């Protein structure tokens, strides 16, 4: 390769002016295309009011939702008493049923206090209020269920007594190295990165910070609650009656065993030794059986259900595509002009295919969900109907493009019409048919996920339900990973088979 000199370039430009200086018309048309695209985007910006939507988006929540994909929060509330503290974990906290995590150090002492005992009949308020919004309620903060003291006392039978008992008087929360919160009745000390913030608590009255607020803390009004941020490690809200700690950990909590399992919280080595040689946890079953059962029915991750739904999706794609192939095969012969001489029948079946294809998969899915109830039957039917149309069209086009010589050859030896098709036509088109079916099988695995969400069953529905609660983003991540793996595997199977069909390797 050599580079042109300037003189040579100039000479070239002079010799071919039509190439180097574009005509005004083409410049104008290019400019017009660019301008109309820009104008269209401006229109779309206005039409969908994108600016408003973006500025009203809950970006702060988006961050915590995204963090939820790969991490989890433990949410203890530390309530102030006169002289003691009460540490309260919400139900179903990842830290377990009776939590005493290492990062929350407690100091106890014998304290004298007056207690009002009351027999309470708690009417359990709905934990997740449902709303008409499709995604369910979006709580301002991901409020821990059960922490709001909204229990209703219907019958209070109270009496006052003085108790002397051991209570927590000091708690230190270690925020994974990002900082620490030390809490004693009436005083909260927060340290982060060498800075210290001290807040005095006037019980049920006000929170007062000594000195200036550090950058990582915020307070809306004097006396109001102080929000302290530790970055990814979590945050804390210091209120006048309690400190709400939100401590975030990387990972998927309790992925194998939930807190009700006897294997919960044990290190992997110990679990393994329990499984192989340990004493039976449940005398009626082996430890392995118990462990499998616990994993499958893990209340938080619902492995069994997720895998079942995943299988449903796979089955939907497989059965729908195969059924469509079987039905479209004979119909395509009917629609192909060169095989069925009846023009009316050709046109009728082609329009029928167009109809099936153009009434979209979504519409079929909605119809069949309504008819068969939510579940894979609706999904199979939707894929079957849409793809019968698609396959019919593709197959009949392939049939119309066949090489006629083979057919003539078979016909010339006096074969019956059926044999002519079988030996003259089918061998030519079968690999193409199968390749097309395989291709759609692969793409239907993806579609089945999506139509699942409108009610046609499978992992799509499960995924959609998990997203609606706005709290189970880690489950969403888990299912997405499974879907990606399945799609990847099926892509590879399908493309390998297709390559074999279209260009088979010569046997040695």
């Amino acid at each position, binding site marked *: 390769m050599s580079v042109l000199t300037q003189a040579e370039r100039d000479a070239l430009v002079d010799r071919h002016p039509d190439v180097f200086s574009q005509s005004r018309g083409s410049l104008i048309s290019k400019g017009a295309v660019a301008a109309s695209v820009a104008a269209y985007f401006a229109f779309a910006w206005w039409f969908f009011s994108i600016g408003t939507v973006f500025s009203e988006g809950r970006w702060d929540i988006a961050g915590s939702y995204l963090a939820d994909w790969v991490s989890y929060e433990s949410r203890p509330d530390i309530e102030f008493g006169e002289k003691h503290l009460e540490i309260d974990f919400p139900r179903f906290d990842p830290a377990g049923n009776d939590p005493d995590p290492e990062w929350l150090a407690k100091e106890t002492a014998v304290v004298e206090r007056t207690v009002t005992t009351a027999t309470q009949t708690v009417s359990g308020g709905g934990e997740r209020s449902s709303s008409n919004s499709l995604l369910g309620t979006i709580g301002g903060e991901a409020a821990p269920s059960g922490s709001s003291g909204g229990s209703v006392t219907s019958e209070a039978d109270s009496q006052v007594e003085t108790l002397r008992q051991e209570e927590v008087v000091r708690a230190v929360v270690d925020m994974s190295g990002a900082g620490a919160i030390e809490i004693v009745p009436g005083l909260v000390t927060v340290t982060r990165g060498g800075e210290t913030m001290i807040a005095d608590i006037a019980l049920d009255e006000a929170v007062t910070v000594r000195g200036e607020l550090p950058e990582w803390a915020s307070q809306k009004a004097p006396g109001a609650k102080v929000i302290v941020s530790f970055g990814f490690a979590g945050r804390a809200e210091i209120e006048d009656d309690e400190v709400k700690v939100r401590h975030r950990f990387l990972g998927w909590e309790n992925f194998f065993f939930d807190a009700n399992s006897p294997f919960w919280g044990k290190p992997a080595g110990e679990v393994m030794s329990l499984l192989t040689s340990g004493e039976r946890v449940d005398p009626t079953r082996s430890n392995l059986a118990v462990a499998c059962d616990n994993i499958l029915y893990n209340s938080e991750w619902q492995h069994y259900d997720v895998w079942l739904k995943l299988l449903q999706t796979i089955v939907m794609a497989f059965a729908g595509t195969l059924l469509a192939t079987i039905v479209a095969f004979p119909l395509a012969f009917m629609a192909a002009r060169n095989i069925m001489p009846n023009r009316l029948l050709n046109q009728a079946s082609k329009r029928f295919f167009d109809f099936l294809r153009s009434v979209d998969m979504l519409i079929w899915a909605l119809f069949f969900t309504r008819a068969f109830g939510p579940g894979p039957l*609706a999904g199979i039917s939707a894929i079957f109907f849409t793809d019968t149309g698609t396959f019919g069209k593709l197959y009949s086009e392939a049939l119309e493009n066949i090489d006629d010589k083979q057919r003539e050859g078979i016909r010339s030896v006096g074969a019956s019409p059926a044999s002519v098709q079988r030996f003259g036509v089918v061998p030519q088109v079968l690999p193409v048919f199968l390749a097309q079916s395989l291709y759609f099988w692969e793409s239907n695995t993806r579609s089945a996920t999506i139509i699942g969400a409108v009610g046609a069953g499978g992992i799509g529905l499960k995924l959609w339900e998990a997203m609606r609660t706005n709290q189970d983003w880690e489950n969403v991540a888990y299912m997405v990973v499974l879907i990606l793996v399945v799609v990847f595997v099926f892509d590879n199977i399908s493309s390998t088979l297709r390559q074999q069909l279209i260009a088979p390797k010569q046997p040695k």
Partner: protein
Amino acid sequence: MSADAAAVTGGARLSEEGLAVERHWRELASRRRLYTWGGIAFLVLAMSGSLWFANETNAGKFFDRLPYFFGFIDQLTPRGPLEIWRAFWDLPSPYDDGSLKFNYPEGRVYFTETLYVPEYIYKMVETLNIALVSTLIGFGVGFVLCFIAAKNMTANRWLRFFVRRFMELLRAFPEIVIAGFFLAVFSLGAVPAIIAVSIHTIGALGKMFFEVVENADMKPDEGLRAAGGNWLERVWFGTVPQVLPNFLSYGLLRFEINVRASTIIGAVGGGGIGETLRLSISRTHEAKTLAIVLLLFLTIVAVDQLSAYLRRRLVGDQAFEFGRGS
């Protein structure tokens, strides 16, 4: 057609080599038959297993639900043939009893005092716009990325590898999850649908684009290189003019697909006609449902035909491979 018949009736004795050939042929044929029947048996087994499983895990069994199915078809029959027409154009219905079922005129979107667009056509336009905006965004970003992913344009293996995996991820990531996430951030509306469909389109178009670029003729590129053109100039003057018709054709194909995709995303909360259809079906508003289905059907047919016509003009018949791409 069997070989024995030919061997017996043909009369001519085969030589040693001929027999070996025949033996080999028979071997191959029987192996082939075995594979065929084995494959069919496997498919039959898998199919019956699948159907049994689907039936077992469905909310209702197939044969139990079949009567409901016909009942449902019955429910979908409008009270008069003109009802569909009225629902389509938002004309007042004679059956109007104040219920949601017959309140067609309430959906009208007025531009002036008297000029209005029927609700469903407005919603359909919204869906079409979602599809168009996402196709344009996907086209733009895919256009930029594809040259970085193409072997003949980018020498750096790692950069190429990274860009390709990135596009694969965008393509394979379920649209529904992206839509769900942004629905949580933005609340209901079209913007989450645009984002979800765009992200998928970037991946899908990017892949098709870089395959086109890799098949491009490199002679113009070499010429530009010889004249001292830099990377951008080589791409812009050497490759783009060759690949642009193919790009546009794929873009149009994507637009067809995106119209369907944005309808589906709409049905799960992304606005547009999909949402309207889902609500209407679940509330058994027969005339409204049929009007929407009719509108969707007509739109999809029109978009398909238009795009097919344009694609044929752009690149000829070669662009007509498998309908919906990855």
